[in-house]
């Protein structure tokens, strides 16, 4: 018996066919993985399956009944979004049971009782927090698990839909999540697991559906297929998994030298970056990697230590100085800190180099357009034009625009903070190739922060491991994966 089905659904947006006659169905007691590049139609499918969007054609059935005629059937589909959307200033217990009507709590709300009811759920999901703690004070991993727990609390759910649930989880928490998902499967619920991480899909899933350009292109049992096959289905081409992307033109010239730097979440860090080198920073979420780079960049305070760039003393605490003197930071939080969402692609690119685009007192729109077009061509940004608001581009294309913008400032050091977060396999390889090219041809030094071991290993000439704000080891490109993993979880210190 199928619990959730979509028959022949088509969803249109102005100028785009987001879903093209898609048939897909989900069975109880099965973990069904869904994969596709950015813009392949996964998000649209989710929104159709949860009743947010109404498709132009086709129908969605829940338990065999047409859910488009009876919207309350969508309550059986529990959806956990990719981004954490909990109420930070409310307690864990309150977050678990909100909205109260849906959790069967009527009339007044008794906090003590809520907290008592929360305990077994927190245990089931192995969330190591107290029910009365505020959500803003618990770890990101716990928040992620809490969000999943919350989805299962509501009434009688039959389908659990997880959208990229592991992006902010550490390796050990991912294992916990997998165990929980398997328990839910054993309760004869249908699980839909959406992820970019192929290893996870193969570790967890039963069956897989692949989307490309709004169409369902493949469906298979996972035991019958392998990773290269999936990538080929996703991208429509072969991607070499073994390819490495570290720079082949590392010079002996020291570009950036950091000595005994201490700040809010890092202590006594020293390292060197050479011209043409890609230096990887590996560590767990919260190990202080981003904080270290943001401090050198001038966004966060530094308590002690010194930095030199090109042999000159570096001024700390001033992002304007950093950008003008060739140190650029590309933030992990692309949506909040990277893009200017309601401005056009053109304005997003030109903002860094407005002085060069002047004609007289005015900013020349012609020069702006030329620059934007150049970035679009050079970095292969997929967009109908320079006037499109950047918020409507996919994550990978936004990232390319941001890289293009950074490069038009002629940087000496470029920091990539989780550059492929939320970006699909095909585009990932493009970003890696870009980093390699920039290091080799423009002779800049690149710092790569990443939580993905594969990514760090593939791209870095040297790797520095951080553990709880301290340097836990330094490795070269050929070092053992296990040694680095040990360092970032604090084993061999």
């Amino acid at each position, binding site marked *: 018996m199928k619990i959730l089905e979509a028959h022949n659904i088509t969803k*249109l947006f*102005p*100028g785009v066919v987001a879903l093209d006659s898609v048939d897909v169905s989900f069975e109880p007691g099965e973990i069904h993985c869904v994969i596709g590049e950015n813009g392949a139609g996964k998000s649209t499918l989710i929104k159709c399956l949860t009743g947010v969007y109404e498709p132009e054609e086709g129908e969605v059935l829940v338990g065999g009944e047409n859910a488009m005629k009876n919207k309350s059937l969508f309550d059986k589909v529990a959806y956990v979004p990719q981004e954490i959307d909990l109420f930070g200033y409310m307690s864990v217990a309150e977050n678990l049971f909100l909205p109260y009507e849906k959790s069967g709590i009527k009339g007044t709300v008794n906090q003590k009782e809520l907290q008592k009811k929360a305990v077994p759920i927190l245990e089931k999901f192995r969330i190591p927090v107290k029910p009365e703690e505020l959500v803003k004070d618990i770890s990101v991993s716990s928040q992620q698990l809490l969000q999943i727990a919350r989805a299962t609390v509501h009434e009688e759910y039959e389908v659990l839909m997880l959208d990229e649930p592991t992006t902010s989880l550490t390796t050990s928490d991912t294992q916990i999540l997998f165990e929980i998902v398997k328990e839910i499967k054993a309760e004869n619920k249908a699980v839909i697991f959406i992820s970019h991480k192929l290893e996870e899909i193969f570790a967890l899933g039963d069956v897989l559906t692949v989307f490309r350009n709004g169409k369902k292109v493949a469906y298979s049992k996972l035991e019958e297929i392998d990773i290269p096959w999936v990538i080929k289905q996703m991208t429509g081409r072969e991607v070499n998994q073994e390819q490495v992307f570290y720079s082949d033109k590392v010079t002996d010239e020291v570009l950036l030298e950091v000595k005994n730097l201490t700040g809010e979440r890092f202590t006594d860090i020293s390292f060197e970056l050479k011209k043409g080198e890609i230096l990887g920073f590996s560590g767990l979420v919260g190990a202080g990697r981003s904080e270290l780079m943001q401090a050198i960049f001038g966004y966060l305070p530094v308590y002690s230590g010194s930095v030199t760039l090109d042999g000159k003393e570096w001024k700390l605490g001033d992002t*304007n100085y950093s950008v003008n003197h060739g140190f650029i930071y590309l933030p992990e939080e692309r949506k909040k*800190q990277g893009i200017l969402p309601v401005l056009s692609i053109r304005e997003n690119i030109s*903002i860094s180099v407005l002085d060069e685009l002047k004609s007289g007192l005015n900013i020349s729109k012609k020069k702006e357009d030329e620059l934007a077009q150049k970035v679009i061509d050079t970095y292969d940004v997929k967009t109908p034009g320079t006037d499109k608001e950047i918020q409507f581009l996919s994550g990978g294309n936004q990232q390319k625009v941001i890289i293009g913008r950074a490069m038009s400032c002629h940087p000496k050091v470029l920091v990539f903070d989780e550059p492929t977060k939320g970006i699909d396999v095909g585009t990932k390889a493009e970003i890696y190739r870009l980093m390699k090219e920039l290091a080799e041809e423009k002779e800049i030094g690149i710092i790569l922060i990443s939580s993905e071991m594969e990514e760090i290993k593939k791209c870095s000439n040297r790797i520095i491991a951080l553990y709880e704000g301290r340097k836990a080891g330094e490795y070269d490109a050929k070092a053992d994966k296990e040694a680095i993993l040990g360092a970032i979880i604090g084993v061999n210190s």
Partner: protein
Amino acid sequence: MSKEKTKTNNAFISALKKSNMTAIGAVLLLMVIIASVASPYFLDIYNLQSLLRDLAFVGMIGIAQSLLLLVGELDLSVGKIASLCGILSGMMMVNYGLNPWLSLALAMFMGLVFGGINGLIITKLRLNSMVATIGMQGLYGGINLVLTKGKAITGVPENIYILGKGNVGPIPFPFIFCVIVLILVLFMVKKTKTGRYIYAIGNSREAAKILGIKVDKIRMMIYSIVGLISSLAGILYVARLGSAQSAIGENWPMNSIAASVIGGVSLTGGIGNPAGALIGAAIISIIQNMIVLFGVNVYWQSAVSGIVVVIAISFSSISEIVRERKQRKIKLG
């Protein structure tokens, strides 16, 4: 996706973007038509002059306020800065016998300083702009009362009257100042680097800082400009009344915010055009003018004007709702 489809899509989106501004323009036009049909006195030259004179003040302050709204902040002390600067100019002219033009220039300089103080404490102490300026308006208003004991300063030299009461041809002087302010502000916002940075900060303050934009410096500069424009409006009002009074600018903070929002400036920053604020101000002024022309009972005036302002604000959001509905319905073959 074919190229052709993309093109129509683009044209469609840009048409929608413009439509916000045209919608407000259409509302304004509609109101002018209704007013001129409903009351024979509306198009009377004296009525129109007095309308433009009122509009000039709300307009100037609205344009200033829209600058702050573009970076996601607001200033509730604009009215008190205006009246304090008016009082200061009056005292310099009347009590100390200073040259009137010099007095006005000094008062405007003080407006710049007051605005700068607002900006300084808000950026350096990281205060919320609304709460901080509620406090500051109390301070500026208080200084005003200490200086005047609540009495108006009369006997302002008559040669400055032209600034407030005079006309150039048929057009009132304050309105000309208002247009000059708009042109200068529009130039800054649309053509210069600073203007782009203002939109960038309104889009995301964090992203702007990471781009190396001197966020706090620009915010402070805007507060100073707002102070300067407020003081300009204040001294023009003194010239209009022929005396300096502490009651000047009472409704300006709220009216300027309403004018900006009616004109399509977003309260959360990054979206809008200062020219919209002037259209919004025109709509508010016509409402008030019509209330007078229709002889609405004095006790009802505030209630009526309040309701009409809410309706006017709804227009831009209703057009947004309609647009979303349309977008949902559009099917491409």
